[in-house]
């Protein structure tokens, strides 16, 4: 099999810097927030700020807020994934993996703005901001940098994330 000389695709070149994947969440519920906190604190009681409205009212936040890492886009309605989205799912049992199809989350930088609260509807958009390739222990390896921005229904900035994906 011929060795890949680059993992950069024409689609990547064409999409660099272009906002895509516009998405709107369902309204966040107090149950969504409580379940998130229980899962991430599993082994101990999660902080009251995430499930006790009476307590949360006494804090600077004035009511329940979501943990900074809360994902309001979990459990969107199922839809057919694009070829690129399927590729980003990584290895699948029983299917041969092509060079570049193995993907790891290399890291991320988040800046946090307005807290997410029950009732909030979050809008998201993403763009590929750049990439670099180098030889690693898994051979040719591609690092892509992807920026995602969230705002709420009041137009307030909620979060920005720059994520590094490692393709090998």
């Amino acid at each position, binding site marked *: 099999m011929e060795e890949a000389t680059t993992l950069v695709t024409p689609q990547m070149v064409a999409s660099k810097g272009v906002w895509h994947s516009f998405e709107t969440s369902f309204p966040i519920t107090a149950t*969504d927030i409580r*379940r*998130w906190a*229980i*899962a*991430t*604190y*599993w*082994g101990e009681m999660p*902080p009251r*700020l995430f499930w006790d409205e009476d307590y949360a009212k006494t*804090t*600077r*936040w004035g009511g329940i807020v979501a*943990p*900074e*890492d809360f*994902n309001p886009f*979990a*459990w969107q309605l199922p839809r057919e994934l694009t070829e690129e989205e399927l590729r980003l*799912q*990584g*290895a*699948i*049992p*029983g299917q041969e*993996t092509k060079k570049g199809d*193995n993907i*790891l*989350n*290399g*890291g*991320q*930088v*988040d*800046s*946090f703005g307005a807290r997410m609260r029950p009732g909030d509807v979050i809008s998201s958009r993403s763009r590929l901001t750049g990439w670099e390739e180098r030889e690693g222990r*898994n051979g040719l390896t591609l690092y892509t940098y992807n920026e995602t921005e969230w705002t709420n229904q009041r137009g307030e900035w909620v979060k920005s994330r720059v994520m*590094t994906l490692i393709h090998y």
Partner: protein
Amino acid sequence: MSIFFEDIAVGDQIPAFTRKTTMMEWSRFAAVNEEFVYVHMDDEAGRAAGQPGAFGMGNLRWAYMLNALRDWAGDESEIKELAMQFRAINQKDDILSAKATVVDKSVADDGSNLIHLQIDVENQDGKGTSPGRAIVAVPSRA
């Protein structure tokens, strides 16, 4: 309970947030984050990706780090930024400890009192898996 800007010193270490990551932790996180990805659930897929078996989600380590910062800073503080590199894989039954050390203090243009921290998530061998940095705005006694 809250911490105050004036009481924090460079070199302070925050209490670690520690969890053994078994399928119970991974499955609960997969459920709330809808993160049903084969490499996190299926040993065969994990091996196909060059690992000993299914491996943990970077996002769960991320959550543990935020939990550590939050538990230390209290509900009147505000996490402004978190950066983390996922340098090592979280294998099943690893014991992860999210840790952070204060490296700087500053006052922002808007008057926010900022604590700068160096962070990492160590495994049971004391090996850092996820180096990075965080910025937390904390209340002042003034």
